[in-house]
Every structure is written in structure tokens, then in C-alpha cells.
């Protein structure tokens, strides 16, 4: 009996090896099929990712809570050591900000008066939606986060995503309960921006690092290190004037931008619902504008 099993194993072994190889080849072909689906019908892949995010968001949310507490505890221990200098810095900053507040109030009033004089069409109103970050970046060459707000909460594709400090990215996929935010540093992120001081238009490209590159600047660039970068609102996706970052290097035609927000540490973000699409529709329908000329 033993002899027979042994001889059978000798007979089966090559087939088994062949079978394993065949399985690997078939699975590899299936993977290439997935890549083809991604390229030919991205909306299908997007829907699949949205559904996966919906399932995973509650689990990740549960897991991220203790880690957030741990991170806070570590932060508070680190902060204790520099409490005094932090306090002094904050006092100085508050004094400076109070001055700015006065300036801002005066400018706001002046701006309002000038708008009234010119009968300027007001910018569309933006609505905000606050969401918890529940998932970090899952790949070496993908920069995105998962937030616990989906279509049922009002999240829509292409909404701008901001924190108190500035823009961090845009909504790229929406599930029912969760949405994925493509960060500015992702290689697929291209955002139309202004150099705030010179009003030069450019496009901000992510390259997977913490620095982003400013491209398509006019050839005679006057932008220099320290200039602030804000969204231009071109394309209608983002509201204009959202702070993005600051220029840290400008040499050999390459202009680098450091973002205002450290997105690895972000716990809550705001999704900006900017109603420009509603504004653009009547223009596309060639309707005559009503009201006084």
C-alpha cells in the first residue's frame, strides 16, 4: 500500500507543480485584467473602492480612536517640556494677530463698500462638512486619506478638503458612509493656484513627497521664496483664495512649495461644498442675464 501511494505521489508531483504554476499565471493575468479595468472604466473601479471604504471605515474608525488618544498623550508629554517657551511664543503671536484683526476689519469694511459701489456679483456661498480622518495612506506611492463622511452626509466628488491652516486635497471617491481624499502631494493631484503677492497663475503638482512643485508659471517669474500660494478657483472645483502653502525653493526653473498643513497629524478635516456648478448652468444654456445692466 505504502509502495503504491509512493508511486502515485511520484506520478502526481509534476502535475501538482504544473497546477501551482498555472494558478499563478492565471492570477497574474487576473491582476493585469484589474489594471485594464482601472484604465478602461475607472468609474467601475471607483465604485468598488467606494464600497470597500464603506465596509472598512467603521473598523478603521474604531481602531484609530485609541491610537489618536495615544498620539495625544505622547504630544502632551512632549509639550510639557516646552510649555514656557510655547506660552511666550503664543503671547507674541496673539499680539501680532490682534493687530492683523484690526487691519482685517478695516479692509473688510472697505471691501464691502467697494463691492457695493461696483455692484459686484457675490461669490457663491460655501457650505462646510466636518469629518473624522479614519484611514491613512495605504501605499508607498499613494497619498490619500479616508474620512468618515459619505454621500448620505453630503460629501460629493471633487469637494475641496481643508483644515484650519489650509487646503489639503480634494474628495476623489465617495461611498455612502466614507469618502477618500486625494492629498495635494499625490502624483495625480493638480491644483490651479495663484502666487498671492504677484497674482501669477500656475498649477501645483504633487510628486509623492512632502514638497509640491509649481508648474506652468509665466516664463518671467517673479515669485520668490516665502511667497504664499493660494487656490485660484480656476476650473470651478475649489473656492478661490484657500491657503495652500509657501514657496521654499525657486531655482533652475523648479519652484517648490511646502504645504501649510502637516496631513500626517490631521484628525478632523472640513469638506467645502462650493456651489459653482449651480452658477455655471444658466450660462451654458445661453440664457440672457436678467436684472439691471
Amino acid at each position, binding site marked *: 500500500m505504502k509502495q503504491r501511494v509512493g508511486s502515485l505521489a511520484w506520478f502526481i508531483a509534476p502535475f501538482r507543480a504544473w497546477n*501551482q504554476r498555472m*494558478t*499563478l499565471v492565471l*492570477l*497574474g493575468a*487576473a*491582476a*493585469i*485584467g*484589474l*489594471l485594464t*479595468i*482601472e*484604465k478602461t472604466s475607472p468609474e467601475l*473601479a471607483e465604485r*468598488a*473602492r467606494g464600497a*470597500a*471604504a464603506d465596509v*472598512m471605515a467603521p*473598523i*478603521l474608525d474604531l*481602531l*484609530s480612536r485609541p*491610537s*489618536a488618544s*495615544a*498620539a495625544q498623550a*505622547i504630544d502632551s508629554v*512632549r509639550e510639557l517640556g516646552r510649555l514656557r517657551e510655547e506660552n511666550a511664543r503664543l503671547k507674541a503671536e496673539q499680539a501680532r494677530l490682534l493687530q492683523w484683526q484690526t487691519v482685517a476689519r478695516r479692509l473688510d469694511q472697505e471691501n464691502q463698500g467697494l463691492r457695493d459701489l461696483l455692484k459686484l456679483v457675490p461669490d457663491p456661498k460655501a457650505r462646510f462638512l466636518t469629518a473624522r*480622518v*479614519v*484611514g*491613512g*495612506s*495605504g*501605499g*508607498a*506611492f*499613494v*497619498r*490619500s*486619506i*479616508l474620512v468618515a463622511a459619505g454621500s448620505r452626509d453630503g460629501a460629493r466628488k471633487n469637494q475641496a478638503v481643508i483644515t484650519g491652516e489650509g487646503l489639503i486635497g480634494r474628495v*476623489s*471617491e465617495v461611498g455612502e458612509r466614507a469618502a*477618500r481624499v*486625494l492629498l495635494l502631494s499625490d*502624483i*495625480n493631484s493638480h491644483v490651479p493656484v495663484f502666487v498671492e503677492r504677484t497674482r501669477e497663475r500656475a498649477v501645483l*503638482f504633487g*510628486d*509623492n*513627497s512632502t514638497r509640491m512643485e509649481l508648474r506652468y508659471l509665466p516664463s518671467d517669474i517673479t515669485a520668490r521664496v516665502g511667497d504664499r500660494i493660494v487656490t485660484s478657483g480656476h476650473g470651478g472645483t475649489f473656492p478661490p483664495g484657500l491657503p495652500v502653502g509657501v514657496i521654499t525653493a525657486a531655482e533652475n526653473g523648479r519652484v517648490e512649495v511646502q504645504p501649510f498643513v502637516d496631513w*500626517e*497629524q490631521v*484628525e478632523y478635516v472640513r469638506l467645502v461644498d462650493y456651489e459653482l456648478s449651480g452658477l455655471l448652468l444658466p450660462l451654458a444654456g445661453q440664457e440672457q442675464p436678467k436684472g439691471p445692466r
Partner: protein
Amino acid sequence: MTHVFWQRLDLIARNVTPFAFTVLLLIVGLVPWRLPYLPPIGISLVLVSVYYWAVHRPSALPAPAVFIVGLLADLLSGGLLGINVLVLLAVYAGTVAFRRWFIGAAFAVVWWSFAIASSLALMLAWAMTWFLAGAAADFAPGISGTLFGIAAYPLLATFFARAQRTLLR
């Protein structure tokens, strides 16, 4: 009857353990830890698991299971569908092909080979991203994540070896 049922359930539970560990490591890589100096983990811990089982017992984590883990990684990381599947399958197939060199080899040899395998996996992922997205991504976050995986290998391998001894006799 019930005895047979429990036995079967026990067997299934033992058989899915390596797969469950791998999925768990995938989830660990997705949680936003917000800890200072922690690099983006991504699938570097998943690679440890896939490599370990490919070396020590490929039948415990068969190729279709690796495919499912890769697909989950793609769906949950927000990247392009298929990249992680191909990377994990390539590491698995390559490791199984060179498996006989590792049997009975010193731990350091297996560890160094993992370092090479995960570096090659990183390069493969980079090349595919470059090919599909049409832009060269910065390598630095990938390198720190891969180094994290290599550093975590001895700890995880010790844990897997213990699990292999107790669960998969």
C-alpha cells in the same frame, strides 16, 4: 456528528490563520497612527507575512489567498486596482521559486533575502505607478516604509514561527 463538526471547524480555523494574520497586518498599515517619526507603513508588513509563509509553508497561504490580500490592499489604499495584487503575487512566486535555498539556511540569510525581495517589490510598485500614472513618484516615503518592514521582520517572523508550531502541526 458534532465531534466531526467541531473538528472540521477547528481545522478551518487553523488553515485560515496565516491569511487572517496577513489581513490584520494590512489593516495595521491603514490605521492613521499619527505617531511621530512613524513612516507610512502601507503593505510593508503584509510583505513580511507573504514572504514568511512562502518560505516556510506556501500551502498555508496559497496564491489565491495572496491575490485576495492584494485586492483588499488595492481597494482600501485608494491606489490603482491591480498594483498591489501584482506586487504581492510577484514576491510570492519569486520566493516560492527560490524556496529550497532558504530551507535550513541561517536566519540572517532569510532576513537579507527578505530585504532584497521587499526592495524589488518597492521598485516594481514604483515602475508600475510611473507607467500607469505617467509621472515619477518620489521614492522617499516608500524607502522608509520598506525599512520599517525589514526592521519588523525578526519580530513578526518569531511570532509566525510560534503560530506555525502551535497551530499548523
